[in-house]
């Protein structure tokens, strides 16, 4: 073995070979929270800084390589995986120039790239299946090329990391994908139950069969595309929302589409295909006028059977999918949102649903017992006044507070709703817009509320609803509640700070947060310094 290379290496080191991070400006992307880690992407150095907490107030930093020109990073719904989509070098001029890629990182036991998917054309759209089985890469308006196929997508099977992405073109005559969603497993008349990928384009809904029993070629070729009908103004309809419901004793599995600026909803039963057909189902569209433009739709189980509920003004139109008959139920308030809380309340055994209704126009929420929707004088609705109109309703992760919901008010205040006690507890803020976050697994039993760029934040114990006021010395960038990576039950609250190029974190014990018991880490982009 010659000694020349070793000498050269020693000389190089001796000439001051320091980490490149010291010579570049740290311009991170928004951090991504995982189950036991926080990832901050550093596109300048094509790396992900993955912060984990090996013990109380302990922070470990790992640098994981990612692709060049990152466009998006997203965690899997269970927080176990990080997906990083990058465009690579564009245009590629040398064989060694990096291709567009999707990098899949897992953090347990240590942050590691577990799979890299490379593809030819840069795609900047990424959607992860809520059940974690599929990912979709798609073209967005930022993917400008001389010649572009706006309907190009890549479907990634996340249950088999050895499989290659499935390239396909969304079957659309005039539009391009605007939204992707995944159904739960649906019973079909001809074949095994399967999930469907629902792609909404400007004027169509396309269904892609996700069954494992068909080949990828068949999956790509056997798309079902449903054009939207014209609305009452004669304009071509546009999908606004798609919901689904599995088959029951009397009804086939069904999808329903809410249409923009239209009083109709479109029912799409997965009907029996014609005799001799090998198709798993056959779409037989049926339009139903619900009497006004609905703000949202969902399938619900009522005392009269399965119905599609469409919230229209102060009414709910209950559509019988079998007959298209519509029963208008007066709700007295213009509710604009609906979420089924049947399982949370534990009333599923009755076979009918409980729904939480809220409104972005009136400070009232409703608990709707659909077991009395068509018979009782009150239609089963129990209303509760809250202090503000509601922007959104958040679930509390985990099982500890399954009956609690967080109501985000338009005014910045938020409310903790106990579905069983039917009690709403206001959490008044000082008028600033707070951000709310939970531990992904809910294990800390806490809700964290903070204002970006502020130094104060709060931890609310969901058991007694007492806010715990906390403080940091630096402006808050984001807050994460992560499991400690030592395998114990400890949890760490990671409060990130990013001021100019200084990237740091203040750590709290997430189970007993106390401003007097913290540890600050600075210069994380440069390797990190611990400050006790």
């Amino acid at each position, binding site marked *: 073995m010659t000694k020349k290379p070793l000498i050269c290496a020693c000389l190089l080191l001796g000439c001051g070979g320091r980490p490149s991070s010291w010579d570049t400006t740290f311009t991170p992307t928004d951090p991504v929270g995982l189950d036991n880690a926080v990832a901050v992407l550093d596109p300048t150095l094509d790396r992900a800084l993955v912060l984990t907490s090996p013990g109380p107030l302990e922070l470990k930093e790992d640098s994981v390589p990612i692709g060049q020109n990152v466009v998006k990073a997203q965690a899997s719904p269970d927080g176990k995986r990080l997906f990083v989509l990058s465009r690579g070098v564009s245009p590629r001029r040398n064989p060694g120039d990096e291709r567009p890629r999707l990098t899949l990182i897992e953090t347990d036991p240590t942050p590691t790239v577990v799979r890299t998917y490379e593809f030819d054309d840069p795609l900047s759209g990424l959607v992860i299946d809520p059940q974690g089985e599929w990912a979709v890469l798609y073209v967005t308006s930022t993917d400008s090329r001389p010649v572009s196929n706006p309907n190009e997508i890549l479907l990634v099977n996340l249950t088999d990391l050895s499989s290659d992405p499935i390239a396909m073109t969304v079957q659309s005559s005039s539009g391009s994908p605007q939204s992707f969603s995944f159904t739960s497993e649906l019973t079909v008349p001809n074949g095994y139950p399967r999930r469907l990928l629902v792609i909404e384009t400007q004027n169509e809904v396309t269904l892609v069969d996700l069954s494992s029993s068909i080949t990828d070629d068949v999956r790509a070729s056997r798309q079902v595309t449903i054009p939207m009908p014209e609305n009452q103004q004669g304009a071509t309809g546009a999908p606004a929302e798609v919901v689904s419901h599995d088959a029951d004793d009397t009804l086939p599995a069904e999808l329903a589409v809410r249409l923009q600026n239209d009083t109709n909803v479109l029912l799409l039963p997965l009907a029996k295909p014609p005799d001799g057909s090998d198709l798993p189902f056959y*779409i*037989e569209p049926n*339009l139903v006028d619900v009497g006004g433009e609905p703000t949202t739709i969902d399938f619900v189980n009522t005392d009269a059977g399965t119905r599609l509920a469409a919230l229209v003004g102060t009414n709910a139109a209950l559509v019988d999918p079998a007959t298209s008959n519509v029963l208008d139920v007066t709700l007295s308030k213009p509710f604009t949102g609906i979420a089924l809380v049947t399982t949370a309340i534990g009333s599923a055994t009755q076979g009918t649903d409980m729904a939480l209704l809220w409104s972005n126009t009136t400070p009232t929420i409703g608990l709707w017992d659909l077991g009395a929707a068509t018979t009782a004088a009150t239609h089963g609705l129990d209303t509760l006044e809250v202090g503000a109109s509601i922007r959104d309703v958040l679930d509390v992760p985990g099982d500890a507070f399954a009956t609690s919901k967080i109501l985000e008010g338009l005014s910045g205040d938020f409310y903790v709703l106990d579905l069983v006690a039917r009690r709403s507890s206001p959490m008044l803020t000082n008028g600033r817009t707070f951000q709310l976050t939970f531990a992904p697994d809910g294990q800390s039993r806490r809700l964290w509320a903070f204002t970006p760029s502020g130094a104060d934040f709060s931890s609310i114990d969901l058991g007694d609803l007492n806010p715990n006021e906390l403080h940091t010395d630096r402006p808050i960038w984001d807050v994460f509640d992560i499991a400690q990576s030592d395998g114990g039950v400890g949890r760490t609250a990671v409060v990130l700070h990013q001021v100019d190029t200084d990237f740091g974190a203040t750590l709290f014990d997430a189970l007993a947060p106390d401003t007097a018991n913290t540890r600050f880490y600075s210069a994380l982009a440069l390797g990190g310094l611990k400050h006790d």
Partner: protein
Amino acid sequence: MIETQPNEGAPRALERLRVLAGVAVLAFFATNLAACGAGDDDSAVPAGGEKSASGGASGTGQTGVGGTTALASGGSFENGTGGSSGSSTAGSTGAAPPPPPEKELESAYETPVATDHYVWTANPTTGNVALISADDFSVRLAQAGDAPTTVAALPGHDEDDAIVLNAGSNDATILKLGSDGVINSQTLTTHSGANAVVVSPSGKWALIWSNAALEDASTLDPTDGLQDVTVVKLDDQPPTTTILTVGYRPSAVSFDDKEEHAFFVTAPGLTVVDLGDAPQPDRDVQLTDDPVADQTARDVSVTPDGAYAVVRLDGQKTLGIVDLGSGVRQAVTLPDYVTDMDLSADGKQAFAVAGGALVVVPVPPGDADPSTFATASAAGEVGRSVTLSPDASLALLYSNATPDQYVGILTGGGDWTTYEGHAVDLKAPVQAVFAAPDAQHGIALQTTATGSSKEGAFSVVSAQVDRAPKIVGTDAPPNALAFSPDGAQAVITTRDLTKQLYGVYLVELASLEQTFISLSSPPLSAGIVGHYGFVAQAHPEGRITFIDLADASERTLTGFELAAKVTQ
């Protein structure tokens, strides 16, 4: 608009029986029906309009007055009794003026059409024909030609078949739904401008023609004769077509029992087409003395055997019987103006309404003295129009030329020498009356009663003398009606385009009970398929509502046109 058809020359009784098989009849009303005809004076209506509410009468055939007129060779009507040369108004000189003409509102609307298991409905915009199963409500779509407008069922086949007329491409499409679910189509070239299709009862022939009654006369050039007819021989494989010429502006067509001839009622008379192996016009027959003057108010029925045509003219007291073999015309003078006339299903009797009474005229009358013709009437009702049940055992007398809220119910049979009759007060002006296929009930569709807050009404009347009518006020005017084949149920649609009120009633005729079902779009037509009533509605994507005749449960399908656009 009111679809009055003063020049309709259709053999209405036969036409109804053939096209609708005693199942579905439809009527269309405008919202201003009540205003129309108002102010006309009918001297036969008692002053003040007060009539007996339920006065009944039974009796024997009443003797009439007046004489039989025979048709001299050469073709002019002569006074049968005096033998002097007469005019077409013979017998009316010096008498009261004729009553205003009745409105023919029972005309059939040809789409959608039901076969054994399917409702067929065409969409002229998309060129699609939808087949909607009454078994499982599945929808199949077949591509027809350009602008399919008219669908007719093809009877006599095991399969559900239909023929579709494509207005935009001057052709027709025969659609056959095979047992394997596959729809096979054949395209036939037709003459230009066809707008109607009629299929013979056996399904052997289809006549594609241009119905002048469906055209806006004001837009037709005088030289638009609409005289071309395409004869389709359906039992040839593939079907063969022959284009023929008939008389000027045909308005009705029928077949004889043997399907050897077709009869086109035209403006000047009647064209007989010899079907045979090489269809061709056989002859033109003059129906009246003055075919030029008489064609605007003529009512022509051809007997099923094709032997005779029975002709009624508005404002005349005579009924013309024309031997289609010889061309000889015979005039039967009745005691009063003949305001309506229907033929029995077998064509052996013509039921004429004269002076408010029903006169049963044998066809041919031969030398029979009109004074011996059976006559029936219902005390309290001076009917001007008549509706017959298919077996001619129930005759419903009414009048719509002027507001009249009474219906005369006459039950007879055979030669009608004995009958029972009574009138019922239905409280709202009657526009049209329909007899159920089993002759046990009738339904009257009505306009708004004086002082009523309702927009219309319908009434169910029983042939039983001792049953009161069921009167139902409606929030929108009734516009279409269909009976179930056994006469047990009927569906009646209501429509108010201004108020956007739409609905359908399912009527149980035995109990006279009705169930109302609200519709969300304007009903166009109603019919029966299997054990469902159906209502086709105006909707850009197509809409139809099925109503279970047993329990009134309904199911609406909308957007079946959309199914054609689904790529799957």
